[in-house]
């Protein structure tokens, strides 16, 4: 339970700058997720917060106290590593109690805390085992247990679920959310995984090449991405991007002309002027087959996921426009389809990639 304040945080390895000035506020008990493409500096930023990587410039404050010079053990944080980093020669109980043992906590209290953590994580049957005798999910829970017993102010996770299979990942996702609820702790979580980011985060921080692109709630980023990068990064399947031309601007939005000559009015406005080339972003679920639809295309591939079906349609000069529809829909390959567009869920981006502001907030975000 702590607040974190990052001010102008920078990190260079030799002459290459990896983190290029991060400003971020993390509130008490918040669940913050860092996402971004591989190599953008998520792990580095997390390790700087943890104290494992010295901070080149800027200031890191925990509970309003500068901690740049404080060692990793004394910042009151606990970290769960991607590789789990359990101590192989110690039992589960010793692994979880190691920090307390180093802090010379009496054995009785140590055992009490380990037992408490093992109850929360359902590790009781495994306390006397070594890590190598555990499954991946159990190891992961031990790594989390090792963090819990220290009673940290902030939990740091670096892609903790990426070594698990899909089913276990789903289960651990729920357990982590439950843990966040139960422990009332601030958590910072690094991931590649769209679903993890969307489901667990209260606040997502999108990073690119060492800089923050956008910070906001999952739905905020989904419905109001501030630029092309965030729009493309958040959401799976990806947003469809079409090159279009502005033909009119009026109070109800911006009218654009597609490659086929079809016109749409998107309820966004901004600096766009008539004649500008802009990018139209359409989420896959904003497209649906409709005999009266404005778009016309040919289905190239059908991916049936059961509950959902993804159509890959060649239309408007692009080969792979993704359309997400119900699994009960019987559209087949090579069929020609017309698609209607829910323009309220469309986005426009100017030539520099910045989004034109929506005229209205998404209903779920209006409050």
């Amino acid at each position, binding site marked *: 339970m702590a607040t974190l304040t990052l001010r102008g945080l920078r990190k260079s390895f030799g002459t290459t700058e990896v983190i290029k000035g991060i400003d971020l506020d993390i509130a008490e008990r918040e669940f913050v997720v860092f996402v971004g493409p591989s190599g953008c500096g998520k792990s580095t930023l997390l390790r700087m917060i943890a104290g494992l990587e010295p901070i080149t410039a800027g200031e890191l404050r925990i509970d309003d106290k500068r901690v740049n010079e404080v060692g990793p*053990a004394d910042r009151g944080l606990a970290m769960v590593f991607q590789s789990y*980093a*359990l101590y192989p020669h110690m039992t589960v109980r010793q692994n979880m109690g190691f920090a307390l043992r180093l802090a010379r906590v009496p054995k009785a209290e140590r055992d009490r805390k380990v037992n408490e953590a093992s109850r929360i994580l359902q590790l009781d049957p495994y306390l006397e085992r070594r890590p190598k005798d555990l499954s991946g999910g159990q190891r992961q829970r031990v790594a989390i247990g*090792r963090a819990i017993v*220290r009673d940290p102010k902030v939990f740091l996770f670096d892609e903790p679920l990426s070594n698990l299979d899909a089913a276990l990942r789903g289960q651990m996702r729920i357990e982590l959310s439950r843990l966040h609820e139960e422990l009332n702790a601030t958590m910072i979580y690094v991931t590649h995984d769209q679903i993890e980011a969307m489901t667990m985060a209260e606040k997502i921080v999108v990073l690119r090449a060492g800089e923050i692109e956008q910070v906001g709630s999952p739905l905020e980023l989904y419905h109001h991405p501030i630029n092309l990068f965030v729009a493309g990064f958040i959401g799976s399947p990806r947003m469809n991007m079409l090159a279009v031309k502005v033909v009119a601007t009026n109070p109800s939005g911006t009218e654009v002309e597609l490659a086929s000559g079809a016109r749409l009015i998107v309820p966004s406005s901004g600096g766009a002027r008539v004649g500008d080339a802009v990018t139209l972003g359409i989420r896959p679920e904003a497209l649906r087959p409709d005999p009266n639809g404005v778009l016309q295309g040919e289905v190239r591939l059908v991916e049936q996921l059961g509950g959902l079906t993804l159509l890959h349609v060649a239309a408007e000069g692009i080969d792979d426009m993704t359309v997400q529809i119900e699994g009960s829909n019987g559209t087949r390959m090579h069929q020609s389809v017309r698609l209607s567009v829910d323009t309220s869920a469309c986005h426009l981006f100017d030539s520099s990639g910045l989004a034109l502001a929506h005229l209205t907030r998404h209903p779920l975000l209006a409050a």
Partner: protein
Amino acid sequence: MSSATQETPGAIKAPGGFLVMPSVIVLLAWMIVPLVMTVWFSFQYYNLLAPETAGFAGLDNYEFLVTDPDFWVSLRNTLVLLSSVLVITVVLGTLLAVLFDQPFPGRNIARVLAISPFFIMPTVAALIWKNLMMHPIYGVFGAVAQAFGFEPVDWFAQFPLASVIAIVSWEWLPFALLILLTAVQSLDHEQREAARMDGAGVIAQFVFITLPHLSRAIGVVVMIETIFLLTVFAEIFVTTSGGPGNATTNLAFLIYARALLQFDIGGASAGGVVAIVLANIVAFFLVRSIARRLEV
């Protein structure tokens, strides 16, 4: 059908047995013949200087051996040499391995220098130490001592066994370092970072993370060094020839002295049998305890 499939392995077994015969015979000849001959000679009066006293000696050679004070001294020297070199190389090797794992300028050159003694053959190493380092008049140590106004130490006269231990340790330290360095480098660095987050300082990380990680490698070093250290010979032969008196005579040197200086083949063979028994006892305990650790 089932009987046919059951018969097949039996049918294959016989030619299989024939095919391994050559290697078995070579191995037998290689190991058993010298062993049996050593045991046989150890029960014979067989002195090249006294060919008239030949024939079965019973346990006389053994009795002569165990009542010879030289034998017990050589046994002690063997074990002192073995354990001292093991302790020195493992302790220093571990510390150096951890040191060489840290980045510092010139690390690669330092590594090569530290490992290079391993490539010097024992006789040469012993000669270098005897004449260039430890010699009271020409040696480096003597020169240093004199530069500071001390009396040079005649190492091989005053501390003969310690001097031999120093030379052998110098030869074996690179081996220990090499094995332990690779082991240190294989330590998952996230584990060390986790320990740092858990509040482990440099020493606690070493004790609780690095040392347990190294235990296997240390076991391997101890096992391999033991095999070679029980039979140290060249270093002693070149530097002290077992002396002064019997101060640096180990079992291997005693056997050599018996057989080739006193021409007492029977007595030397008895010493050889004792050496075999000793090596087996050490190996038994060592291999067992280390094999158990390797399983973990």
